[in-house]
């Protein structure tokens, strides 16, 4: 009997540290492991005993790519625990901040991390030699995301202007109006991005996913909504732990997630699209239709198109929110602590970021639980890899390795988040 393994010791163009290991026993896929070896950082433990007001800024440090997700989920959880409802103006500003993070993160992934895979370049720098104007436009498009983060959050990474109850300082009408001309350019460039990525060559591969995303019914989800799936999960966020369970597997420092039935689920742009497509707004919806996206997309390689459609959405939503903006009377609502448990779930660029906190009467954190979307998607990535490589066992190691890395990048994995996690190893036998 011969064993063949394919290894990627250190997966490139993802955030954080992970590896891939695939073992073939003859023509059969024997084992697939997405190995997350980034050391765990024990955030949940270090939160115990800290003030409820500290959770947003502490947890935002889990990730430099999606700090807004942590800020927002922590704020919502604490506000629920304390029985506070935020003002509509603050809610709108939170959506606008999230637009900035989606633009920044999605554009980086589409152009710098994922597009080189489809076009056959080792990295974005090599791609830029042949497509300088495309890359230039991408950088400019990403910049408008950074600018939104800076105006609302104080700086483009690890915003410092967010607090439980709202913001430390609300932006001026003029500061937001100043962003409009560049956002209008971004709207056209985002639509062009959809056309561009829709023309990429996609491997023929589909999976029958259970998609999980927030669903609120009136708007495409950022900060709000119940937990919904394409196979019947439909619960308030306070029941997250009843339907999705975490478990430790030896090959990963990041916990895996399973449904009550033991299944794996898919979070992120394709899931949000499947569950909220009709709420994208006319511009993004038209872009999706033009790109050939149906009611649901099952080819994970085409996630790059959905991601681009979400950039159109985020830019249009930002323009809408700025157009309707009224400076709030107060930048935050006062929040007094009380003993209780709160739940927060918001849509990070790569899927749901879930927080649960129990605090005491003094507002000190007694218990914390944080689940990052990449950690949830790990099981789905392994499932995709297993299904993808099975009919491709005859491919040469190098080609197979490259395709597998591309497949992993379909999920825009944020390993640092999940290990609060990648290296490919293929063993053939």
């Amino acid at each position, binding site marked *: 009997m011969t064993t063949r393994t394919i290894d990627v010791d250190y997966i490139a163009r993802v955030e954080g540290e992970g590896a891939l290991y695939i073992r073939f026993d003859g023509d059969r896929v024997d084992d697939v492991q997405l190995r997350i070896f980034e050391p765990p950082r024990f955030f949940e433990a270090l939160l115990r005993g800290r003030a409820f007001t500290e959770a947003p800024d502490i947890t935002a440090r889990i990730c430099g790519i999606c700090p807004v997700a942590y800020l927002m989920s922590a704020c919502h959880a604490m506000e629920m625990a304390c029985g506070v409802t935020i003002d509509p103006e603050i809610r709108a500003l939170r959506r606008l901040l999230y637009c900035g993070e989606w633009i920044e993160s999605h554009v*980086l992934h589409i152009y710098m991390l994922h597009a080189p895979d489809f076009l056959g370049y080792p990295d974005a720098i090599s791609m830029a*030699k042949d497509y300088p104007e495309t890359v230039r436009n991408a*950088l400019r498009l990403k910049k408008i995301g950074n600018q939104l983060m800076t105006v609302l959050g104080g700086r483009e990474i690890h915003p410092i202007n967010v607090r439980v109850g709202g913001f430390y300082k609300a932006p001026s009408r003029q500061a937001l109006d100043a962003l409009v001309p560049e956002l209008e350019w971004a709207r056209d460039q985002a639509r062009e991005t959809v056309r561009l990525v829709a023309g990429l060559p996609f491997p023929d591969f589909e999976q029958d996913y259970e998609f999980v995303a927030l669903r609120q019914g009136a708007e495409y989800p950022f900060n709000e909504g119940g937990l919904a799936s394409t196979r019947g999960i439909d619960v308030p966020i306070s029941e997250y732990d009843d339907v999705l369970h975490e478990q430790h597997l030896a090959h990963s420092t990041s916990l895996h997630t399973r449904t009550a039935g033991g299944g794996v689920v898919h979070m992120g742009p394709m899931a949000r699209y499947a569950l909220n497509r009709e709420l994208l707004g006319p511009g993004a919806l038209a872009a999706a239709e033009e790109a050939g996206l149906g009611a649901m997309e099952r080819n994970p390689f085409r996630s790059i198109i959905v991601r681009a459609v979400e950039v159109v959405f985020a830019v249009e939503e930002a323009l809408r929110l700025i157009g309707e903006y009224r400076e709030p009377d107060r930048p935050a609502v006062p929040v007094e602590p009380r003993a209780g448990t709160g739940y927060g779930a918001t849509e990070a660029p790569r899927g749901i970021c879930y927080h649960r906190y129990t605090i005491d009467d003094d507002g000190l954190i007694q218990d914390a639980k944080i689940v990052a979307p990449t950690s949830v998607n790990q099981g789905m990535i392994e499932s995709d890899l297993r299904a993808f490589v099975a009919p491709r066992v005859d491919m040469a190691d190098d080609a197979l390795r490259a395709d597998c890395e591309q497949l992993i990048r379909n999920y825009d994995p944020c390993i640092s988040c999940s290990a609060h996690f990648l290296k490919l190893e293929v063993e053939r036998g």
Partner: protein
Amino acid sequence: MAERGIVIGVGNLYRRDDGAGPLVARALRAGALPGLAVMEASGEGTALMEAWAGAQRAFLVDAVSSGARPGRVHRIDARRQRVPQDFFKYSTHAFAVAEAVEMARVLGDLPPVLIIYGIEGGDFGSGEGLTAEVAAAVDEVTRRIVEEAAAPVTSHGGEHA
């Protein structure tokens, strides 16, 4: 008209010697050099490209982990030399300092002068405070940037002295 220049201190103050870049920036800001903007940055690549856009000369300071002795100062003239991709080991972002420099080179967007000071770190653990050798290197790099900034621009875009 003062020359448009910028010093960018890259790093994380809460990861010991990775704080070298921001600490050089703070020391320079305190000295208020005319014509020289000073900023701290996390190392996210596109933000760096934006930061040096339009500058006649830029100095970028970051902690490095190349295997040399802690406190060793590396000086890279980015217009003349490539930046080693694995030099800035602790820039964990997928598009960080080295990628930003090489991308700007491909796009023709490097400033006329871009000098990178890499300070070899010893301890990248959690917490504040530098190891003694790195603290001395921060003082050295601060002094060298003051001296270089005072001199006329002589590099390859050279006419902006």
